[in-house]
Every structure is written in C-alpha cells, then in structure tokens.
C-alpha cells in the first residue's frame, strides 16, 4: 500500500545525478521473477497452514502487483484487499484500487480511517504532518491485522526494496507484514513486473504518492527520481561499488552521500528492537532459528 512516509531524521532532499551514469540499472527477467514470486507466496503462506492473505489496496502500483501475485498464488477468492482511505485521500486512488480488485478478481472492502484519526488528533491538534502520516499508517496496519485474525489469513507486505533501503516507510505501519513478495525489487523493477503481471496501466504509469495531501508525490518529497536512486542503490548495494567508484561512475557526490546516509540511518527499521544481552542465549544473537523453523 502507498504509505505515509517521512525521510529519516536529519536528511534533506539531495541533488540527483545529472551526468551520464556508467552503471547499469537494476536488471529484471520479468517472466522468471513473476513465476518465482507466485511460487514464493504460495509456498510461504501455505506452509504456515493458512490459505488466505489480506493486504491494503491503496490504488498504487506496489499493492496492485502484490494483489496480482497473491491472486495467482492462492486463488483470487483467497485474497482480500482493504481500502482504508482518510478523508483527504484522493478519489482517483480509490478508483484505481477498485480497478485493481476487478482486474485480478479479488474481493475488496473499505474501512474509513477518518473517524479514529480525527478523534485522536483532536487531542493533539498541533501534530505535524509526519506524525499524522505515521499514525495513519499504523492505524491501517491494525485494521489489516484485525481482518487477518477474522479470516485466519496472513498480512501480505507491499514494501519494495527502494523504500526499505531508504527507510521511506513507517515502522510497524506499512512496513509490517507476514510475507512480502516485493522486498527484493527496486521500484523500477516493480514497474516492469507490474506491467508484465497485467496491472492496469493507469496504476503503473502515474507518479507514486503516499496520498497524504493533494499533489504529494514520492519523488518530490524524496528530492530525486526512482530511476536515478534505483540505479545508485543497485550499484551501491548489489554491485558493492564504493563511494569513490560511484562518483567516478558519474553519480553526484552529494547524491551518493545523501542516499548512503538514508540507508545507514534507517537500518533500525530493518531490524528487531535492540535487546540487552544478559543470558547465555539471547534472541536473534545466539538463539538463531529460521522463521520457517519446523514448517
């Protein structure tokens, strides 16, 4: 789902790469990736003894692709998309969510979040936009988990690799899920795969937005375009280019440093909370098991 997002503290929008960059964009074999992700969803969901998933349907490309993959993996009847608009959410987003549900034949329902969000912020009227956005993301998370309990389903994640690396998501909000088929796909790869998977073109082609206020877009908020940052992240993370090599390859030094800082400062969002080690076996340090342990 498209999420309320805030950049990591202390990071300002940074200038994007302008010169011709000599590293490749993240490649994708869409046909193979599609097949593998359908298999992944089927395998990782069913082995838990569950056959259904719920996900937030925002009208954006990420949740659209996740819905399509899940429908193929589990059968459309086993996928529930929940639209959770706030009163400022755009009508177009809701319409796109409906198009996605229709395209993949999944059931969808609407749970408005305005009453509880407004009731809460009546007590804190001075709350910033980012506090409001994070609160909405976490409200949506509780709704998804509640309906997953109602249906005996798992919550399907929709965070892509770009936003996970940049920390452009709300911890325990839109980042919360049981199974996430998109977490190793950069945004540009999500676009490619979404086209391949038959996501309606209006959904793929529109500018990504958290839809928190009118006219908001991810790229204006972040200060760079997804194709640029994905090319940088792919070289930095996947190809292990060092700072000097990235600059030599044509990325602006400020862009490299700014993005590297975002990745580093959001590391906490990709980890369990810090636990003080007291015993001989501490969870996740020397008590190590796969999540699929015994499955």
């Amino acid at each position: 789902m498209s999420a309320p997002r805030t950049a990591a503290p202390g990071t300002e929008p940074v200038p994007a790469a302008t010169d011709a960059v000599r590293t490749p964009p993240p490649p994708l074999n869409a046909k193979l990736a599609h097949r593998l992700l359908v298999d992944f969803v089927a395998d990782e969901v069913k082995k838990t003894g569950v056959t259904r998933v719920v996900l937030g349907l925002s009208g954006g490309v990420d949740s659209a692709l996740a819905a399509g993959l899940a429908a193929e993996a589990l059968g459309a009847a086993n996928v529930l998309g929940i639209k959770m608009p706030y009163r400022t959410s755009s009508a177009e987003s809701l319409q796109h969510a409906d198009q996605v549900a229709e395209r993949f034949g999944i059931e969808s329902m609407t749970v408005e979040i305005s009453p509880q969000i407004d009731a809460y912020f009546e007590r804190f009227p001075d709350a910033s936009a980012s506090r409001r956005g994070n609160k909405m993301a976490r409200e949506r998370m509780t709704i998804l988990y509640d309906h997953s309990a109602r249906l005996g389903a798992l919550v399907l994640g929709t965070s892509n690799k770009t936003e996970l690396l940049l920390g452009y998501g709300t911890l325990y909000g839109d980042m919360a899920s049981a199974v996430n088929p998109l977490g190793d796909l950069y945004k540009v790869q999500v676009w490619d795969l979404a086209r391949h998977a038959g996501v309606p073109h209006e959904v793929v082609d529109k500018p990504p937005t958290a839809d928190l206020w009118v006219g908001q877009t991810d790229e204006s908020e972040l200060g760079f375009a997804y194709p640029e940052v994905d090319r940088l992240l792919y070289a930095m993370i996947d190809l292990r280019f060092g700072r000097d090599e990235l600059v030599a390859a044509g990325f602006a030094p400020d862009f490299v440093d700014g993005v590297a800082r975002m990745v580093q400062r959001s590391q906490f969002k990709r980890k369990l909370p810090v636990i003080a080690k007291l015993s001989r076996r501490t969870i996740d340090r020397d008590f190590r098991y796969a999540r699929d342990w015994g499955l």
Partner: protein
Amino acid sequence: MADRFTVALAQTKPHLGDVARNLRQHEEAVAAARDAGANLVVFPELSLTGYHLKDDVPSVAQRVDGPVVRRLEELSRDVTVVASLVEETSDFRFFNSALWIEQGAVRHVHRKVYLPTYGMFDESRYFARGGHVRALDTGFGRGAMLVCEDLWHASTIYLAALDGALFVVCPSSSPLRGVSEDAAQDDNARFWELITRAYAQTYGIFVVYVNRVGFEDGVGFWGGSEVVDPHGRTLVKAPYYEPGLVTCEIDLAEVRRKRIAAPLLRDEDIDLTLRELTRIRHGAPR
C-alpha cells in the same frame, strides 16, 4: 558390477527441521523410484532435514548407527539410496553428510569438505568440516559423492576422478539468485549447468546432480537436477523450481568411449601436480 544402471533423481522439497516427515518423503520416493525401475535413487543435500537449520542442527542430527539411518538401510534392500543429513559423531561433532546406502547397509559417508560461509551462507558456524574426498566401489562401478559447494572447488572432482570414479553424485541445496538475464532460469542455475558439463567432459565422467526445490525463509531452491554424460550431454533433466522424480539409464561404456577418444585423465601427471603443490604449499605466502 553392472555396466548399465538406472538412476532416479528425487528432486524433493524438504520440510525444515522435520525429520519424521522427510523420512516419509524418502520412503515414498524410494517406492516411486523402484516402480520406475531404478537401481539407485539420489536425494538432495540435507534431504532429511532441510537447509537453513541454524541452531536446530543438533536437534535434527542423526547417528549413522541410529534409527533413521536404520530405516534408510531397510529401504536400500532393493534400491541403492543416497540420502543426506546432519551426522552426529560419538564425540559430538556435526557434519553435513551424504550417505551411500546399498543392500541394507551404509557403505560410505561423505562429509562435506567445503562449507560455504559467506554472503547468505553460514555453514561453518554450525558444521564441522569433512576431511576426505574418496571414491568408493559400488554395485554399479566406482563412483564418488561430493556435496554441493564441494563441486565448486575444482580440486574435489579432480581427486575423485584420479581416485577412479566413473561417476560423481552431487546432492545439492542450491539457492536461486540473480533473476537478471533473459533465460529460463536464474544466474546460479546457469553457473551450475556450466560446471557440471565442463567437469563431465574434462574428466570423462558422469555427473549426477540432484538439487532441491521450495522456499525457506524466502530463499528458493532452483531444482533442475540432471545427469550429464562424459560427452557433456544432458541425459535427463528435472523441472526447474518444482518437485519431480526423473530417471535415466547410465551406461558406463560411455566413459570408456570418451576416455579412448580423449585420454586426458590417463595423461594426468600426479607427480607434477604434487611437486608444484608442494612448492606452492611451502613457498612464499601469497
């Protein structure tokens, strides 16, 4: 010794840490292999336990004289079985081992010598390293077992070939990664398919490669098990990414034909290799 035998590749999807369930899977696959006329059935690496065991390694470990292996020995009365598990020794070490089980008894244990511990792998943290690469005389002629990463070290198959192996059996848990090229499979699968063919032709040997499928914690295994003959031809290929059981006949006369045409192994100069290895071993640090 039979010059011809039929091998079944049991491309399974093990359940992580559930030995009893995996043993039932072995029973079913052995029965299916027998029905398909196989003399030998080969399972993937850690076929009885699954791969990402981590701290579960001691809990799922089996003694070679224990009840699980005894059951596999019973299964091997009609069909020779190559199965793979966590082996616990009497001094409490744990090995990633493949067992050659023939006519009701374990004939050979290969303990994985190269334990990948880099990137996504952490095997040395949990397993002791094997210390031997040995060919063995089987009911089908001389062969050798190498487990997964072992075969990424050219030295292991070199030793197996010089030790007289006419075929190499390689149980594997090879994860898919790299979905970049416009190919029917991932980058890792294509690398494996390159080396199995190269080794088969270089040493005039059959390569029996058996990989697993399924996902563990999001890591998928690509399957694609196969038999490659000494000429580099694929005799049989299991599907990518899904379970399967395929069989094919191995005719060791092909080894003879290949080695007459290209006697590379005959010409291999072990003394030269030993001399140079000794020099390198005792020479200046690299």
